[in-house]
């Protein structure tokens, strides 16, 4: 059972951690304003507050120490040295871990947090972080839950003095309270009547008002309260209980609490048990002071002398508005957002996909009706097409989110990797505002983490080596995102030594990944990094050697319909470039005919379309063909045959699609003809059927029929010809990334 407020807490904490990371990030820079420090403080403070509500002790304790240090930084009693900055950054990481742990109900070993706590403590010098209060240590003790409404008559009907008691045995029967409110008591929103009501709850009360100060009207100051009270409270309660009644008005009044002496309480049950109503009017004796009913509104009004008219009127709302307008240009003002169930968005995306198909169908029908050509209609259909595209773009934008949160997580990875390898490294990001489909952002987290770790671990040289090369000791990892012609480009670049190609080649040969006598060019050597089971680390470090290699990164990227490439400059560093589709729901495809069937080939994998001369084709073996192009030989794959469709046989001059494949590098696919190039809506085959070898997904064409989307890698890699059904035949389970419906 989930607690919606707890969900809110974690949601909010996620945002707070983000702004915490962001704030700390900018505090690292040379210039930052006080508000940045404030916002960091507030983020930690709010996490502590929320965690407190859910009794997450570890989290509260840690946040408390963190907050204390931030408070010192905020108040400038603590100088922000690089060491302290480092501690703050790592503490933010630890805080994030504690939140994660709290969410999943795990506990984090004390050893981990205590290290950070010690570091925080060290920031403050000696013993300055006070322990956080115990849970039950409230500042007030609830009086009782059922405070009665102010009863005009009951508790405090003014009575005669009770000093006439002449019994010999005087014991403490309660308290005598002298109370003179200051003006501030009223302006702070207090009502003496409420205090008396609370006292009345403690026992039996009689009170006298001293109105002597009202006598002199000549120097009447309406802002100065003129009344004071003396209250006799008969009670068994302790003095602390009485003090608590006045807790909030402490300092806003003159208050004296003395023991009230008197004869031992009579066994009158009215006094001991229910002593809430003051009824001992029978007491004899003269009344030495003026007696008034303190509960009467008139008396209170007189006491509450400061008048509203006396204070200058400030139009509160208008003032606040003006302040906000001044802030209007502030980019930090949060945009209004709307939380929408992802299912609803996906339903909408689906419906828009249908709309696009519907439009295409109508357009096609219209084109077929050449006899009844209506120019107006053609124009309207064109408008329809444009509108449908607009709607589609708008809907897709709902799923898009900036890569910022993803990039922010990476600075932590850099810190950890740097700490673990003893290197100095900083992350420089750009293009954080670049928007990508939500799913892409989510699925990119793991591969990107791995690449960033690699960049620090393998990319950057050791401090000594950097020094020898005349580089600054601090290595730089640049992470950037940008949009380029309908794709998202993400690059990870280090300023390290660049790839050591002879070593890569040697390792590949030693591990039997390539033949010992193989001759590879530079690009081919670089590609070896993506082979399964390749690892260049000579010593297995903490970070790599986990059995996860760049091959996994590559698979993940390809599962998202993207490609990854590598470029390196010896001595200057290595750059990985990931190219991804903007969205997973649509893609640009080339519509082709193969063996009489209509198929779609993703544009991203097509390098070019060629119709070779018969002399460029070379038979090899019984049924293999090679294409010679630009002096190289690349394999030709008969798509129809590999899909099990009737193949028209070998053309003398077939139409070829040159595609890039994971296993074979470039490769040429034989198709019958190219129909069209268009954006297609990706439909999952998996949800109702299962994976099909050689096919990544399906789409609906303009005529309402389904066309299969080819998986060029599987076709080129020969993985399309496997026996059916073998759902796991695609080594790459992530291929379902195409799934949309």
């Amino acid at each position, binding site marked *: 059972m989930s607690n919606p407020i707890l969900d809110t807490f974690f949601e909010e904490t996620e945002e707070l951690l983000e702004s915490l990371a962001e704030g700390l990030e900018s505090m690292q820079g040379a210039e930052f304003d006080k508000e940045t420090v404030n916002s960091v403080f507030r983020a930690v403070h709010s996490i502590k507050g929320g965690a407190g509500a859910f009794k997450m002790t570890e989290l509260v304790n840690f946040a408390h120490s963190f907050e204390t240090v931030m408070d010192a930084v905020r108040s400038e009693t603590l100088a922000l040295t690089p060491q302290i900055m480092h501690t703050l950054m790592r503490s933010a990481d630890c805080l994030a871990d504690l939140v994660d742990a709290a969410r999943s109900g795990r506990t984090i070993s004390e050893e981990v947090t205590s290290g950070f706590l010690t570091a925080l403590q060290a920031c403050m010098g000696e013993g300055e972080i006070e322990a956080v209060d115990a849970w039950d240590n409230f500042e007030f003790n609830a009086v009782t839950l059922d405070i009665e409404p102010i009863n005009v008559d009951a508790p405090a009907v003014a009575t005669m003095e009770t000093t006439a008691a002449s019994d010999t045995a005087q014991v403490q029967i309660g308290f005598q309270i002298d109370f003179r409110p200051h003006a501030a008591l009223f302006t702070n929103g207090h009502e003496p009547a409420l205090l008396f009501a609370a006292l009345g709850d403690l026992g039996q009360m009689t009170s006298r008002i001293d109105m002597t100060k009202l006598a002199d009207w000549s120097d009447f100051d309406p802002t100065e309260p003129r009344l004071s009270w003396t209250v006799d409270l008969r009670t068994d309660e302790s003095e602390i209980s009485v003090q608590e009644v006045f807790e909030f008005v402490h300092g806003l009044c003159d208050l004296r609490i003395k023991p009230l002496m008197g004869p031992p309480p009579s066994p009158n049950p009215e006094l001991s048990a229910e002593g809430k109503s003051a009824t001992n009017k029978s007491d004899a004796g003269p009344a030495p002071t003026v007696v008034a009913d303190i509960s009467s509104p008139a008396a209170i009004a007189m006491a509450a002398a400061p008048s509203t008219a006396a204070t200058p009127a400030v139009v509160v709302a208008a003032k606040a508005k003006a302040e906000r307008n001044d802030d209007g240009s502030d980019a930090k003002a949060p945009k209004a957002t709307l939380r929408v169930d992802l299912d609803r968005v996906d339903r909408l995306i689906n419906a828009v996909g249908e709309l696009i198909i519907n439009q295409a169908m109508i357009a096609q029908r219209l084109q077929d009706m050449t006899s009844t050509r209506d120019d107006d209609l053609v124009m309207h259909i064109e408008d329809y097409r444009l509108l449908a595209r607009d709607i589609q773009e708008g809907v897709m934008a709902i799923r898009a989110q900036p890569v910022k949160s993803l990039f922010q997580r990476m600075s932590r990875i850099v810190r950890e990797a740097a700490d673990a390898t003893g290197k100095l490294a900083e992350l420089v990001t750009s293009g954080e505002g670049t928007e990508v489909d939500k799913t892409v952002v989510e699925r990119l987290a793991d591969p990107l983490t791995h690449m960033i770790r690699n960049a620090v671990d393998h990319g950057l040289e050791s401090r000594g080596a950097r020094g020898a090369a005349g580089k600054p000791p601090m290595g730089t990892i640049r992470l950037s995102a940008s949009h380029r012609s309908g794709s998202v480009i993400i690059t990870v670049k280090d300023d390290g030594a660049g790839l050591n190609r002879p070593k890569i080649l040697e390792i590949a040969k030693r591990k039997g990944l390539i033949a010992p006598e193989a001759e590879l060019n530079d690009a081919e050597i670089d590609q070896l990094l993506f082979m399964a089971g390749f690892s260049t680390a000579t010593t297995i470090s903490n970070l790599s050697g986990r059995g996860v290699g760049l091959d996994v990164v590559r698979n993940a990227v390809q599962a998202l319909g993207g490609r990854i490439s590598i470029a390196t400059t010896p001595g200057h560093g290595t750059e990985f470039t990931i190219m991804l589709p903007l969205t997973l729901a649509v893609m640009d495809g080339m519509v082709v005919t193969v063996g009489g069937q209509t198929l779609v080939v993703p544009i991203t994998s097509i390098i070019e379309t060629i119709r070779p001369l018969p002399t460029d084709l070379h038979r090899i073996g019984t049924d293999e063909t090679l294409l010679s192009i630009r002096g190289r030989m690349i394999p030709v794959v008969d798509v129809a045959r590999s899909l*099990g*469709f009737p193949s028209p046989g070998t053309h003398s001059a077939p139409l070829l699609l040159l595609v890039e494949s994971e296993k074979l590098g470039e490769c040429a696919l034989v198709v019958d003809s190219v129909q069209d190039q268009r954006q297609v809506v990706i439909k999952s085959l998996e949800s*109702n059927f299962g994976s*099909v070898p050689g096919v990544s997904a399906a789409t*609906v064409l303009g005529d309402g*029929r*389904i066309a*299969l989307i080819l998986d060029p890698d599987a076709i080129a890699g020969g993985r*399309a010809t496997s026996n059916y059904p073998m759902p796991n035949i695609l080594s790459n389970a992530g291929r379902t990334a195409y799934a949309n419906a």
Partner: protein
Amino acid sequence: MQTLEDTTKSEVEFVTFSAGEQSFSIEITQVREIRRWSPVTALPHAPHEVLGVMNLRGSVIPIYDLAARFGLGQTPENPRNVIVVAMHGGQTVGLLVEAVSEILSVSREKIQETPDIRSEVARQSITGVIPIETGMTRVIDLGAVLHPSNWSVA
């Protein structure tokens, strides 16, 4: 108000149809709609009973030839053929049949266990039989049709 009689009677409704000149039925709760035949897109390397995929209002659904599935030969092309669209475990599929016969309402105790038969396919995919006027109808286990533990290789 549900009476005692209602609860004990427990009527079940089935859609019955013919495939390979035999009568089959599935529980009406699994049937989403019945559609006219329209051309399908063939899937590479698909088993012979999977005719291909069809567009059902934006979803891609596979079409199974029920007769072929039960080893009764491919259903011959006929404009009267219909597709029974059914749901199973979140999966939507189409079953190509010759014709839909009727909606059958029977009490649970009328459903008889499948007699011990030799055909592996039939034994796995038919959960019971119901006697009807013209003989009997075979109650299909849709899950077994879609996910056979071992496929009958054609």
